[in-house]
């Protein structure tokens, strides 16, 4: 267990270092001096040099990266060069919106997709199974930003069932929920299809295994066989996929937050890239990467909790 955690943490660190380094390289490859673009066309060379020094852009890249991690160890993500507020404060201010969005999307997708997949597997080749198969594949192929745009047009602009932009009044729970519905659907809908296909396939596989035949040979009730004996094994691959899928969810959240003008990490990344506000870009990408690393570790732990064979090998 301890070795597992150690492995996990060091792997996570490698991923984070890699992601940050990659980002530094990309920032330097993008044409245009960030400081110049930030300051606008009328900036004097002195102002540009001053800002460059303030952002650390005048130093070699390796130095910049080292400094970034050095500050990180002290919990310092740097300063936003535009508003002069700490990046950490900005990022953590936006983070809850994205977490709510992703969380409700994936939980909703699980609540619909997993039972759908189970039911399809247990009623294989019925009209229901075929129909849900077609719908699922259609859902999988729909990109989040397309669903976002159309749901915005249909349900917000045309039918006016849900609000179109923003995240709702702080403190007004129902207002926030109604602002959450469309974006969450835009992100979650392809996961409904994906999860239902995945659960169906693994359920079918498990139901064909010998130990299920044993359970049947003892006349156990069908509900016990399916929900206690088979499902526990059938969700293992799904848990892994969701853990890794956190990366896809974060990028889907980016598009969706832009379309719905919703606050959140995705919108923050987008806005800070367009304004070349690099400290904020770095901070939000870092936090997203850490979320991804944590979610894969959590999915491993959930699987270990479900499956004693994994638990023993940790």
């Amino acid at each position, binding site marked *: 267990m301890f070795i597992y955690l150690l492995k996990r943490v060091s792997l996570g660190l490698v991923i984070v270092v890699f992601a940050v380094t990659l980002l530094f390289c990309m920032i330097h490859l993008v044409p245009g001096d960030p400081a110049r673009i930030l300051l606008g066309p009328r900036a004097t060379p002195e102002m540009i040099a001053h800002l460059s020094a303030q952002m650390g852009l005048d130093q070699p890249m390796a130095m910049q990266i080292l400094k970034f991690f050095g500050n990180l160890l002290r919990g310092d993500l740097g300063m936003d060069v535009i508003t002069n507020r700490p990046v950490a404060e900005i990022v953590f201010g936006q983070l809850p919106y994205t977490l709510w969005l992703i969380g409700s999307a994936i939980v909703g997708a699980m609540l619909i997709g997993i039972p759908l997949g189970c039911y399809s597997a247990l009623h294989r080749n019925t009209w229901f199974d075929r129909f849900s198969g077609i719908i699922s594949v259609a859902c999988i192929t729909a990109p989040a930003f397309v669903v976002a745009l159309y749901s915005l047009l249909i349900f917000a602009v045309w039918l006016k069932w849900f609000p179109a932009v923003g995240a709702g009044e702080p403190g007004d729970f129902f207002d926030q929920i109604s602002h959450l519905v469309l974006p969450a659907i835009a992100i979650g809908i392809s996961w409904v299809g994906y999860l239902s296909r995945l659960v169906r396939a693994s359920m079918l596989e498990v139901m064909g295994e010998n130990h299920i035949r044993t359970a049947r040979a*003892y006349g156990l009730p069908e509900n016990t066989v399916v929900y206690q004996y088979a499902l526990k094994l059938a969700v293992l691959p799904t848990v892994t996929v969701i853990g890794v899928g956190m990366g896809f969810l974060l990028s889907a959240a980016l598009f969706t937050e832009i379309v719905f003008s919703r606050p959140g990490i995705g919108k923050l990344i987008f806005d800070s890239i367009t304004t070349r506000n690099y400290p904020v870009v770095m901070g939000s990408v870092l936090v997203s990467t850490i979320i991804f690393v944590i979610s894969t570790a959590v999915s491993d732990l959930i699987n270990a909790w479900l499956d004693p064979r994994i638990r023993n090998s940790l």
Partner: protein
Amino acid sequence: MSKATDNVLSIRNLSIDYATQEGSLKALRNVDLDIPKGQIVGVVGESGCGKSTLISSIIQLMANNAKTTSGTVFFEGEDLLTMSPTKLKSLRGQRMSIVFQDPMSTLNPVLTIGKQMVDIQYRDKRSKSQKRQRSADMLAQVGIPDPASRLNQYPHEFSGGMQQRISIAMALQAQPALLIADEPTTALDATLEVQIIDMLKELQSSIGCSILFISHHLGVIAELCNQVVVMYAGEIVEQGPVSRVFKSPKHPYTQKLLECDPASIAKKTRNLPTIEGEIPNLSDLPAGCIFTSRCHKKTAQCEELKPKRHAVTQGATEKHFVTCHLESL
């Protein structure tokens, strides 16, 4: 009526096909088999001769591509093939129970042994702790040390032989009228095998159940069973009381199997002796006797004509049957 109730299980003319890409594979053909009350019937035959298929039909848990093309399977006077699913379910784990082949995959890997053994007692009205106690007792009987704490462990924490014994304990716990065991001692060493055989005998005499016992081990069959059924490529070629069949085998296949000195069977043949030649393709059967291609006594008619089943000993109470042209004279 009286005839039907003498037998716990009575199979008539059972044929089962598997749908495969090469067409239908005729895994079982015209099988007739009786298991009298309180008797132990052994089945021997090479790998692939249809022993597991026979069992899957008795518990009516067949592969998806299996199809019963003819026959009846009467269990305690009722045909399992036409029985309602609810009725079938009420028999399983109550009136009949089974030890499957391949012990490493028969138990659920993510549930404790205790849960699995308690769950199969779901029809009992006893408390959960009483059920656990009973399961622990069963584990102790099959020689699992420290059974009470072992109940909290998962299948992968046991060796293959232990898993096999747990499967046996589960099957015995049900106290069935018919116990089916598909090669239940393959993963056990010789001493344990003897213990398990003794236990099965004991159980058989204490609760009076019948046992259908499948094994490659001729010595165990000789030791444990009252009757023996010899299968070859999906057909029963010879059957009768163990004493008769093993002493004077009539079918050339049985003779080959027993070619070694019958007295030393118990020691020498942990595995079935190998016979040269191969089992015929079950998707494309020969016209005559199924064993012709490997038979050392074949005659011209064997190639063309299917042999019929003959009683070897006329009038004896315990019938000895053989399906061979040589015996029809």
